[in-house]
C-alpha cells in the first residue's frame, strides 16, 4: 500500500483521536481511512446525481452572461 502524508488542522486531529477511542477504532489512521471511503463515495454520488447545476440552469446563466457582455 502506498503511504502519503496529509496535513490536517490540529483541532481536527484531536477530535479524530477522541472519536477513535469512543468508537473503538484501533487508530486515528483506521478511522481516517474509513471516513475517507465514506466521504469519497458520497462525493461520487453527488456528482453522478448532478447536484451542482442542471443543464437548464447553466443555459439560463449563459444567457444572462451573454446579455451582460461577459460572454460573446
Amino acid at each position, binding site marked *: 500500500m502506498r503511504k502519503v502524508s496529509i496535513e490536517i488542522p490540529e483541532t481536527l486531529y484531536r477530535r479524530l483521536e477522541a472519536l477513535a477511542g469512543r468508537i473503538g477504532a484501533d487508530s486515528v489512521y483506521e478511522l481516517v481511512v474509513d471516513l475517507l471511503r465514506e466521504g469519497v463515495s458520497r462525493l461520487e454520488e453527488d456528482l453522478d446525481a448532478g447536484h451542482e447545476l442542471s443543464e437548464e440552469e447553466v443555459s439560463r446563466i*449563459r444567457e444572462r*452572461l451573454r446579455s451582460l457582455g461577459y460572454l460573446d
Partner: protein
Amino acid sequence: MVSRPHGGRLVKRVLPRDRMEDILRDSRGLPQLDVDDTIYRDLENIGYGVYSPLTGFLDSVELESVLYTMRLSNDLPWTIPIVLDIDEEARRSIGIGDTVLLMYGGQPVGLLMVEEVYRYDKGLYAEKVFKTTDPAHPGVARVMSMGDYLVGGSVEYIPMVRDGYEDYFLTPRETRVLFRERGWETVVAFQTRNVPHLGHEYVQKTALTFVDGLFINPVIGRKKRGDFRDEVILEAYKTLINRFYPRGSVVMSIVRYAMRYAGPREAIHHAIMRKNFGATHFIVGRDHAGVGNYYGRYEAQEIFSEFPDLGITPLFFREFFYCRGCGGMSNEKICPHDRDLRIYISGTKIRESLSRGIVPPGEMMRREVAETILSFDNPFVD
C-alpha cells in the same frame, strides 16, 4: 478546475418567485424584524452561497466555535461571526419555531426560521474578532451598538431591493459557469474598495502572470464621507481593464458586503467568499481589511499559516512603489535601492489631487484612469 465551494456544496437559499408571491400575500400574519445594512448584505450573501456552507445566522454553539477556534463546529475554517442581533423589545415579539419576515428599508428581504434566541458577551466578541475592545475601532463600535440578543436560524433571501448595480452582480453559480466557459482552471481574486492605482495594477498583473484569469471583485456598499463613490470605482476599473489588460483575461463583478475591519480574521473570510465564487487564488496585500494601527502590516498574511485546509491559495504581496533606481514599479522584496529613490503610492495624495481636479503623478495613477474619475462632477461621497 475552479475551487470547490467551501464545505463542499454551494448553498442556495433564495425564495423561488412563486413562493415569494404567496409569502408576501400572507405576510401580514408573520412577525417582522427590521434589519440594518450589514445584516441585509449578509442575508444576500447567505442566499446566493457567497457564505457557503452557511444557510443562516449563527446559533450560540457555532458562534462560540467561531470566536474561540476560528472554525465552525464541524472544523471548517470560518473566522467572522455572521449574526443577527435584536433588542429586548424584538426578543419579546418572536419565539423559537417562528418564521419571521425580515424587512430592510420598508421592503421584505427574507424569511428567518427562528431556532435560537440567545445572549452574548459583546466584549468577548470584540476581543476575539477585532483583537481589541477600543470603541474607536469601527468594528468594535458596531458590536457595542448591536442589540443584546442574537437570533440563530436558517434564512431564505427575497431579492426585492434594487440598488442600480444588478448588471454588475454575478452570483457564485454564475461566476463558476463563466470561468468554465472561458476555460479558466486557475483564477486569482482581488478584493477592492477603491479606484485602481498603479500599485493595484502591478499586484494584479503579477498574479495574473501565473494563473488563467483575474477576478476583480469590488465591494459595493456603505461608504464614509470622502470615499470614492461606487460608480466611480467601477468606471475607473472599466477604463483600466479595457485599455491595459489582455482581452478576455479579466472578469469584474461586485459583491455587496459590509466591511468589518477585522484585519487578519477578515482576510480569511474574504478568501472564503472568493473561493465560493470559484477562485483558486486570493491576493492578500499589506494590512488587508485593517484600519488604523490595530494590526501588523502583514498580520493578515501570517494568519493563513493556521489554515492549511482553507481550499484557496493565498498570494502574498508586499507594497508596490515606483522606484527611480529600478526605473519602474517594484516592491520591498525585489528592490535593492534606497528609500529616497522610491515614490510610495499614497491614497491620501491621490485623493487630494483628484479633489482639486488635478491628475495625480504618473508614478501613482494612470492618466486615463484619473481622467475617468475626473469626468464625474463629484467622484466622492458627500
